[in-house]
């Protein structure tokens, strides 16, 4: 084969891969396509008329749904990637290998899209290169750290995932090089994750009087870090249950059977991490002497979060692990995820300026744009899963290397 022919087939291969592989008229597509189209229109309006044209942000509440949900909550859910790579590569728990690639892919796409959502929220996005190219390093800023870590972590995750891309393209030599970089990327990635998961909490440290005392404490960074462990794993359990139903043809019989033991293991870790988190919350609550806030509407709201969405799912995880009940684990993971959404929004939106006369409530347009970001991410996720060996087994040539 001449070089020209090879290029030609490569191009054709790529074009054929671009075409959708599954059915077009699925319920998910019917719902997501119109929302994404509407979202694109709204994004155009946002860049044309300014952020205020489609959001309800105010001078008092400058960060709303796009930061509080898309970025702060989304990144917590993407935390599964660093926990699972820790189990697989650092602790050599081979058991979790079947879910590793899907989790890393999910994490990588989450970061790409949430960083993308961040650009929508920037008033002057063309200056986003300033803190990167080095002419304006605001090193005393927590946001500087978080921004750099997002960038570096995306690269680390891409390296972690890259062997799957090489397998898809059949590039054997590159595959070998990329696989050799995995462990370095994993170590770097876990370190980065620790710092920016907690960094997202540290962002709010200077807003001391603005956040309700039940949610503000100097331990916010540690809280955010610990909760990202079970937030990420609950997402892995949730996403795994859906993927195993939607992409069942892709998954080998062996991995299908392994799924239940994997979920049980994750449930156990979740229960442990949640116990630590709940204990920390109690310590902070007593340390800050917040008793007088308990008998207020915000206090009931706080207790609902603590008991209904941490203590309850923690016990469900524990019980379902002991009894081997997978359905109960899935319910616990959904409750945990709701609890994380609640917690992150309580810090960033609901408890932020809770005493102001006018509250920020996101506009329907902000919600549509958020859904656009999520749906586009799912589209790309689906596109990759259908083409690359993520859930399916790697080709035999790739396995023999290990």
């Amino acid at each position, binding site marked *: 084969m001449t070089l020209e022919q090879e290029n030609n087939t490569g191009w054709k291969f790529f074009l054929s891969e671009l075409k959708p592989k599954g059915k077009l008229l699925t319920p998910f597509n019917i719902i997501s396509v119109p929302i994404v189209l509407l979202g694109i229109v709204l994004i155009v309006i946002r860049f044309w008329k300014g952020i205020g044209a489609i959001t309800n942000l105010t001078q008092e509440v400058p960060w709303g749904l796009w930061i509080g949900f898309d970025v702060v909550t989304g990144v917590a859910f993407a935390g599964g990637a660093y926990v699972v790579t820790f189990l697989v590569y650092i602790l050599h728990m081979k058991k979790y290998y079947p879910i590793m690639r899907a989790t890393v892919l999910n994490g990588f796409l989450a970061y790409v899209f949430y960083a993308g959502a961040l650009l929508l929220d920037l008033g002057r996005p063309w200056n986003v290169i300033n803190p990167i190219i080095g002419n304006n390093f605001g090193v*005393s800023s927590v946001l500087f750290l978080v921004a750099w870590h997002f960038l570096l972590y995306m690269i680390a995750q891409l390296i972690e995932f890259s062997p799957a891309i090489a397998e898809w393209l059949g590039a054997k030599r590159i595959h070998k090089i990329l696989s050799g970089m995995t462990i370095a990327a994993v170590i770097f990635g876990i370190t980065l994750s620790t710092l920016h998961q907690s960094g997202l909490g540290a962002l709010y440290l200077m807003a001391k009087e603005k956040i309700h005392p039940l949610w503000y404490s100097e331990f916010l960074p540690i809280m955010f870090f610990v909760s990202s462990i079970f937030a990420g794993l609950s997402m892995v359990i949730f996403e795994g249950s859906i993927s195993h139903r939607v992409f069942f043809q892709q998954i080998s019989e062996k991995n299908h059977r392994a799924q239940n033991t994997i979920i049980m293991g994750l449930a156990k870790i979740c229960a442990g991490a949640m116990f630590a988190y709940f204990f920390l919350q109690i310590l902070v609550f007593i340390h800050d002497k917040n008793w007088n806030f308990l008998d207020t509407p915000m206090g009931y709201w706080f207790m609902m979060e603590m008991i209904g969405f941490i203590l309850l799912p923690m016990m469900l995880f524990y019980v379902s692990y002991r009894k081997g009940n997978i359905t109960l684990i899935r319910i616990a993971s959904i409750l945990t995820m709701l609890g994380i959404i609640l917690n992150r929004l309580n810090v960033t939106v609901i408890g932020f300026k809770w005493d102001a006369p006018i509250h920020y409530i996101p506009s329907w347009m902000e919600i549509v744009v958020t859904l656009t970001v999520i749906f586009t991410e799912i589209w790309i996720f689906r596109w990759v899963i259908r083409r690359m060996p993520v859930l399916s087994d790697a080709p035999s040539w790739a396995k023999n290397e290990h």
Partner: protein
Amino acid sequence: MSITRRGFFKAVCATGAVLALGRELQASPSAGKGGIEYRGMLYDSTLCKGCHGCEFDCAEANGLPYPELGQDLPPIRTTSETQRTVVNTYSTSKGEVFVKVQCMHCNEPACVAACLTQAMFKSKAGPVIWREDKCMGCRYCMVSCPFNIPKFEYHSPNPKIIKCDLCYNRLKTGEIPACAANCPNEALFYGTRRQLIKEARRRIVENPTKYVDYLYGEDEAGGTCWLYLSPVKFEEIGMKTTIQKSSYPALTKGFLYSVPTIFVLFPALLLGMHQATKNDHQTKEE
């Protein structure tokens, strides 16, 4: 082994880079350090007659629209995208008191520490200024400012942050801020922070019945370049008294200082764990 060695070098390189970056965590020098003497303003609310003249002077100096002051003027207003300063009216136990609101120009500003592009900048003379060419519009300064001062143009495709810059451009040509230059009642007094504190103390000591014995801004948020005198308690004239008396950037210092430590310890620890469990598995297989 080659993989591990490479991993180790990467970790070392990353650590070095972060250590090199992590050194200058201090947001800005506080007043007096290194011979810097900040300039600021003393606002004596007992002298202000509430003429709103400074609002017009400010608008003119900064190319903003004149404020609309009708009969139905709300007594309490905030600064906005079109107004860098406002004067509010409070009815207190000692009658009507007028209070001017604008950026306090903190000694250690939260907005400057928050800014990841150095667009918010504490100049050596004292004013906290905003630099258009650097700002990326993330609004973290607004989240961080304890006084809620920076305002954002939500309805512009090329939005700016609007706040008082103590007439930075006038200061460069040797003039004093427009509000102080034109105040007919001498309620505003521009000078070095040291002078202002001395002058304020003198007024309090000479007229103990006229003033409350408190100088707002001397300790608030670790000290500000604007200082306020009042005839009544500061709660009564809408000043935030819950503001902590120490620097706001210091709140994130603990976290930022832990960054280099984690960057050194974590890769080493993770690599160690990786090695330890690896050997374990191998011996088991044998």
